[in-house]
């Protein structure tokens, strides 16, 4: 905007900044709500009027990670005294933690969370790896029908997941890949590969060709030049692309819902399925949601300078 001059412009500017702050608070309120519910005592999660300020506790997280049953009679005071702090919190709620011998029985959540990690990390490594090579190819060599090929590559990303999932489900059933990590990883690589090619091509285009040409003159082969000159130059781009691919795979729902149900189920289909019937325990669900959203929030801050590129497939940069 033009340099601020008149007093009315100063006032307008101040009003705009105030409006931005209000809008930010409104946008963050839902996130605050889910984060705060994760630390609320059970009864405050569903209180009327809604509770904004309270003394936070971590009991929802203990509930999130353990299998519990309702106690029929109050706990033996000696047992209670001997229990670690987190188990006491469960006793306080009228429940006890299920155990096999001395080992605490874990809920399904850590399992699903681990599945999400496995699938997201491996699919990201593969998608970014292949994408980097392909992007270099598109960036440096002349290819007949390049625009068409790039359109083809991008269009695979735009396919609605349910549309692709129907035939993939049938094919996976034939070869036994349903409800397996590999099956989900393949789908996520296919989904993210096109994105990673487009994004990496933008980064590759920015690395001056002269760097490699100098290396070639110095006696490097093209492959050596690629690994020793281009890849280090592209490191930031590769990292940004990886984080984007990770977030997409981490968040993905439709494929996971259709292709997995127990062994390989990831967190996104699992977390909503906890609601079930009856009165849901929102504090525990919020705790699971909070932990699940935390990595994404951290990554968003790491990515902030690349967000624009990421959401436009590398076409627009700041």
């Amino acid at each position, binding site marked *: 905007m033009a340099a601020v001059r008149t007093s009315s412009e100063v006032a307008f500017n101040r009003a705009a900044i105030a409006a931005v702050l209000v*809008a930010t608070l409104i946008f963050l309120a839902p996130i605050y709500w889910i984060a705060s519910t994760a630390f609320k005592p059970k009864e405050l999660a569903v209180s009327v009027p809604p509770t904004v300020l309270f003394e936070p506790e971590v009991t929802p997280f203990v509930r999130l990670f353990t299998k519990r049953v309702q106690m029929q009679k109050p706990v033996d005071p000696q047992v209670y005294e001997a229990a670690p702090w987190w188990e006491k919190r469960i006793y306080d709620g009228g429940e006890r933690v299920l155990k096999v011998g001395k080992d605490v029985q874990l809920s399904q959540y850590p399992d699903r969370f681990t599945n999400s990690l496995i699938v997201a990390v491996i699919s990201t490594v593969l998608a970014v790896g292949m994408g980097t090579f392909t992007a270099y190819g598109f960036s440096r060599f002349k290819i*007949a*029908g390049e625009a068409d090929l790039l359109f083809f590559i991008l269009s695979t990303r735009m396919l609605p997941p*349910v549309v692709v999932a129907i035939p993939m*489900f049938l094919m996976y*059933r034939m070869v036994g890949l349903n409800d397996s990590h590999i099956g989900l990883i393949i789908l996520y690589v296919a989904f993210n590969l096109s994105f990673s090619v487009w994004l990496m091509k933008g980064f590759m285009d920015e690395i001056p060709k002269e760097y490699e040409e100098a290396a070639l003159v110095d006696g490097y082969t093209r492959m050596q030049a*690629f690994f020793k000159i281009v890849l280090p130059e592209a490191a930031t781009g590769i990292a940004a692309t990886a984080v984007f691919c990770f977030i997409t795979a981490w968040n993905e729902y439709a494929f996971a819902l259709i292709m997995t149900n127990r062994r390989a189920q990831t967190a996104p289909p699992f977390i909503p399925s906890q609601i079930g019937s009856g009165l849901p325990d929102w504090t525990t669900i919020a705790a699971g949601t909070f932990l699940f959203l935390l990595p994404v929030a951290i990554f*968003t801050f790491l990515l902030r300078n690349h967000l624009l590129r990421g*959401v436009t497939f590398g076409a627009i940069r700041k």
Partner: protein
Amino acid sequence: MASVALTNLDPASRAAARGWSDLTIRNLFIIPTLVFLIVFNIFPLIYSLGYSFTNFAANRSEPWQFVGLQNYRELLSDDHIWSNFVITAKYVIVSVAGQMVVGFGLALLLNRSFPMKGLITTLLLLPMMMSAAVVGLFWQLLYSPSWGPINYVFGLGDFAWLSNPDSALYAVAITDIWMWSPFVMLLSLAGLSAVPQHLYEAAAIDRAGWWYTFTRITLPLVSPILLIALIFRTMEAFKTFDIAYTMTTQPTAELIAIRLYKQAFQQWDTGKSCALAYIVLIMVLAITNLYVKYLNKVKER
């Protein structure tokens, strides 16, 4: 699909080539990706095109029969499917219009320098980075009729946002606006920051009013990038599944993707679902085509 013809490698680099030739490297770098995408994206689509002409049901073992165009005919004359398309259209219009207005509005407000601008912009971008399924889940908590904070703040008593047939779709759209306005904001900010300052200075010298400056300078220069945001969000909203599926079961909020999911994986009407998938696919590809066209245009600028 165009073939990877052997043409026009950079002669300078060929002269300097040692080890593998550029041609080998190019093929080695590109072909695996293309093959992978064809095997896992295009082949399944061909496979399902075949099934779309049959009465195949994936949960039954009896042999299927070729039924020709019957699936397509039935779908296109099915009122239920049409109502799903109408619901989807309503949803796309409301949620994309909301995102464009809120997102562009935020960008106009943010387009000035003030302390902690970077932090605030990043905070505003958080919603769109989240999992839509999980967002849908926790908005259920916010919309809860008896103890949800939304009804409390707006004094709506126990209005049941998600189980009221009239409001369910709009409740989902509001959540979608919350989630995706930041996307429009991000693109708009890029467009706004690319408007040359001297144009505003010239307008100020001419004592042009705010509205005049906005409609004659800002809007025309930002519109290409706004168009990108519009097409992309339209395409994504058309495909919406996660957020609506986790938020409500109301038939009035049954988007076409949800209908497709139910038909394929709950009613196991596989052949017909493949046909419906194709109808949806053709629509999405048409919008994708537009999107890529404008993306390349903006890139060339």
